[in-house]
Structures are given as C-alpha cells and as structure tokens.
C-alpha cells in the first residue's frame, strides 16, 4: 500500500489546495474533535494505539510525548513543528509542505486542542522558500475557511499558526536549539532536563514534533489508530515516508508501509543505477551507520530490523551507494559536514569533529598513518555520549560504522596511498 497518509492527495491536481485536501477527508478529524468536543485523553490513546513514532529520527512514541503536557496547566503553551529538515539524505518534509500543507495544519490544530495551546510555530529551514510560501498560502486558506484563528468551527477554541524561517544551521533541527532559534538566539541546544514539555519555547510548556509526525495525526484520527498500526509491523506502526537518493534510477519519496523489505523499496526507486552492484546503504540519514549492501538486501524498513543490523531507521533517508564509490571519500564528506555544523558549545564535539575530518581527509589524500584508524576510533569514542545534544553521537556513529564494515578500504588507502576502488 502506498500514499495512504501524508501523501494521500498526491495524485490530485494541485494537491496543496484546501478543496483537494477536503475531497480526501481533510479536516474531518478536526470537525469531529471539536464538534462534540472529544476527550483529549481519548485522542492521546488513539495515537498510542496507532504506534506512531517521532518521524524526525528519534522514533519516540508520539502519543506518549503528547501526554507529557498537562492540559489544565495555566498560562501560555505552544505547539512547535520542526520543519528544519537538514539531515543529509532527507527530503520528505519539504514535499509535505509543498504538496499537503493542510495535513500539517490540521495536525497542529488538533495538537493545540489536546495540550491546551493557542499558538503554534512552524520552523521551516531558511532555504525552503517555495515550501514556506506554499505553507503560508495554506494558512491563509485555512483562516478564510474558519479552520484557523478565533473560535474554530464555532467551537470556542482559538488557535493560530505562524511560520518561522531559519537561516542555515543543521543544529536547529535539534529541538531545543530550534526553540533557542525562535527566541532570536544562536541555535545552541539546551541541557535536558528540563524537557520542552515543561520548559520549552519562551520557558513555557511546549509540544514539539516533526512535520511528518504532525501531518500523520489527522488521518490516524479519521481512520482509527488500529487502521494505522496494522499498516505497519510490530513496534513500527503505520506508513512512513522514505527518501531514497544516491545511485538509484528513480530517486524520490515513497510513502509505504513500515516493514517493507528494503529490496522492494529499492525496486520502487528503480534499482541501482547503471546496473551496478549495491555496495552500501545509509538507511536513516547520514547520522546512521552504513550497512553493507548484501546485508541490507535482507533487511526490512522498520525500527527493529535496521537496529538489528547495528544502524538506525532515523528519518527514513535512504542513501544508496554503488560499487564505484570510495567509502573513505564518503566518510570524509560526512565528517566535513559535522565539523562544519557543530555549534561549538561542547568541547568534545567542537574539537572532535575537526579531528575526525582532518584525519579522514589525510587518509583520503594518501597521507594517512598506520595508527590513524585507531585514532579515529579513539576520537569517536571520546565524542560519543559526552555532549549536550545528539550531534556529537551523530558525528561519531558513522565513523564506527564505516570502519567496521569497510575497514580494508581505509587500510588500503593508508598502505598504498591511493584508492582501492579507483574512484579517483
């Protein structure tokens, strides 16, 4: 089954329009929630039943997250959507914003109703101008139709949504860095605890979810938590958007059931380009350790299957690499990325990502030393678990994965001062 949830309007002409969304049951869930006001606890239970887990990459159960905020707590509360999509390989939220922005709006309004918030912010990365304009257009449509703003659908419930545009910083995808950024500061992560549910935006209780998570909520409520759960597999309910890129014939986003064999997903993406051999796959965005091609062909696209191979499903960004690629070079580029994007707050990450890059860089240039592989392991181990946020781990994990599965390529580079696969 494909395109059941976030992409359910994708086959329509100009699917981002309100009328198109409504033709597929859009805003039915909201009308039901607010019509004969539903018990917020029942909505949370439905989400828990659905098995929906955070689609930004962490995979935390969405229903459980929603239960952390006390609806009756007085004072301002906020809903924040994380559309700061920046994990290399990930491009799904961009398409939700471009092709089905109303699903996100409806999800955010329902979230506001459940936790008792009246304002929501959607943090869209600064480069996403087209998606931002599409989202703004949808907000206007929703306001004009009485679906957003004061007294929504005559229910007495007020909720409004504002876009906040980023300006180029991967770290702002980290939830507390994102909140700092909305407050007009550098995007440097906060210590947790306290968690955003208690002390979030402007120091107030805040529910922060990924775009895909929030956009999945309306259809889950419309068709039931069990319907969604049964589309997937154990511990990985529902459908998921997989962004497939790299050396494939038809890269793109595919909304399919959790647990689909990787083999089938690869087929949907047209298979490996030029009929080459599959060498390795980064299964969940560049922070997830690489999985060798042969092993990957035996795995299914769900949290447990990928974790069983020592990697992570993450954001569902699948980067496919064929056998013409040099893994030293791939790791060099990834190490450069984390070095470039480290916010500089924690010493192990600020300094360690530079060490990782410089050492892989010299190996790639044929200037590596025999002790460099141990050095890489050592530096990675000294970053992991020693930083405020997960960027440190994200920088360290791919190194360990590459050295575990493709060690001989690194050794060849060091010994022969050139590339094993002849990539250059």
């Amino acid at each position, binding site marked *: 089954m494909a395109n059941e949830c976030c992409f359910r309007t994708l086959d329509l002409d100009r699917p981002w329009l309100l009328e198109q969304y409504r033709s597929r049951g859009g805003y039915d869930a909201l009308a039901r929630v607010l019509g004969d006001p539903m018990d917020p606890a029942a909505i949370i239970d439905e989400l828990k039943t659905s098995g929906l887990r955070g689609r930004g990459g962490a995979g935390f159960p969405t229903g459980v997250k929603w239960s952390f905020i006390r609806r009756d707590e007085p004072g*301002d509360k906020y809903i924040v959507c994380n559309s700061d*999509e*920046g*994990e*290399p*390989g*990930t*491009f799904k*939220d*961009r398409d939700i914003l471009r092709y089905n922005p109303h699903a996100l709006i409806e999800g955010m309004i329902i979230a506001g109703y459940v936790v008792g918030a009246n304002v929501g*912010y959607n943090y869209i*990365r*600064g*480069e*996403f*101008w*087209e998606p931002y304009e599409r989202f703004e257009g949808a907000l206007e449509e929703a306001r004009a139709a009485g679906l957003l703003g004061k007294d929504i659908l005559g229910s007495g419930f007020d909720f409004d949504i*504002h876009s*906040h*545009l*980023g*300006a*180029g*910083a*991967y770290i702002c995808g980290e939830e507390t860095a994102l909140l700092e*950024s*909305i*407050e*007009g*500061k*550098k*995007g440097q992560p906060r210590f947790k605890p*306290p968690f955003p549910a*208690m*002390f979030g935006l*402007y*120091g107030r209780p805040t529910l922060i979810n990924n775009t895909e998570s929030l956009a999945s909520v309306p259809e889950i409520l419309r068709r039931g938590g069990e319907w969604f759960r049964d589309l997937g597999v154990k511990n990985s309910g529902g459908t998921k958007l997989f*962004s*497939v*890129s*790299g*050396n494939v014939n038809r*890269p*793109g*986003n595919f909304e399919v059931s959790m647990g689909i064999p990787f083999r089938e997903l690869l087929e949907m993406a047209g298979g490996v380009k030029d009929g080459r051999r599959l060498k390795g796959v*980064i299964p969940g965005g*560049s922070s997830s350790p690489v999985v060798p091609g042969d092993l990957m062909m035996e795995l299914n696209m769900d949290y447990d299957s990928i974790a069983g191979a020592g990697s992570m499903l993450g954001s569902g*960004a699948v*980067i496919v*690499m064929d056998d013409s*690629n040099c893994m030293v*070079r*791939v790791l060099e*580029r*990834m190490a450069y*990325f984390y070095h*470039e*994007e480290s*916010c500089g707050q924690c010493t192990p990450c600020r300094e360690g990502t530079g060490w990782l890059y410089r050492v892989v860089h010299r190996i790639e240039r044929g200037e590596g030393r025999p002790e460099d592989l141990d050095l890489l392991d050592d530096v990675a181990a000294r970053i992991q678990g020693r930083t405020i946020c997960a960027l440190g781990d994200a920088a360290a994990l791919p190194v360990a994965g590459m050295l575990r599965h493709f060690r001989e390529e690194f050794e060849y580079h060091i010994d022969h001062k050139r590339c094993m696969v002849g990539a250059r």
Partner: protein
Amino acid sequence: MSFKHSPMVRVADPVDKEALFTPEIRAEIDRWVAKYPPEWRQSAVMAGLRILQDHNGGWLTQPLMDDLAAYLDMPEVAVYEVATFYSMYSLEPVGRHKLCVCTNVSCMLNGSDRLVEHLEKRLGTRLGGTTEDGRFTLKEVECLGACGGAPVMQLGRQYYENLTPEILDSILDGLE
C-alpha cells in the same frame, strides 16, 4: 522548578525607531514581530536580518545590524551572534547572483564535483569567491534537503535540481 527566562536586556538610550528604516522595511519587519509575544521582539531578529540583507544587495553591514538591535530592543552583540552563526547571512559583499551548490553525500554521489569544477572554470573563481565583475558568488553549501533531485543548487529563492554542466550553462547564460 524555576529558570530565569526573559528576553535579553538592552542598555542604551532609547532611539526613534521610525527614523531607523524606510517605512517599507519597517512594515516588513513588523509583520514578523507581530507573530511573537510582545516582550519577545528579538524573535524577529532572523527575519529582520534577512529582510535587511535582501534590501542591501545580499549582505549585512555593522550599522545595519546595530539599527536592527535598536529596533528590536536587543543588545547589538546579540544581533552579531545571530548574524555570524547562521550560514545564510553574509557579512561581506557578495555577487549579484549567489550560486549555492550542495556537495553533501547524495549530491556528491550524483556528480556535484563536476558542477563545482565547471563553475570554478567558467567563473574563474574558487568556492567561496566572487567574480571580479561582481556578478557571481560561488558558495559550497550543506544538504539542501532536496536529495531526490541531486545534484542541487540554490540560486536566490529557487532550487535547481538534476543539474549537469550543460544545464548550469543555460541557467547562467540567462542571468544578467
């Protein structure tokens, strides 16, 4: 549990905000200020910097940043912090067209190296440089979140996907 959490305090003589920018720019910034709680005008600093940069040929000067600090009731250094932290702000003059080429993994697997090489040769400048005639700035950027169309370049507010040197040429030929 209680944490100190309030907007940053500006210690300076009050200024006449209406004298700071043109009415057009003020209106643009005010549209963003209105999204946030009244005491958190500083939340509009990112939008403010973007708007000022767009009106100033693509880069930010210190006087502009100081004026924005005054306009949003925040310390000047807090504006500098933001302007230097995020990659989309330029603190030096840039070319009329800023070519932002992604070279991250998915783009690299699809030939972004060839694009960079081609651009460096055609423009006679390296990554990070600006052409002598002030027309182009060539910039390497991190993942643009459009890997399905790799290799990708951002030019102004628009993305160009599935690029080849030939397509790049036709895009550049069409620019002033």
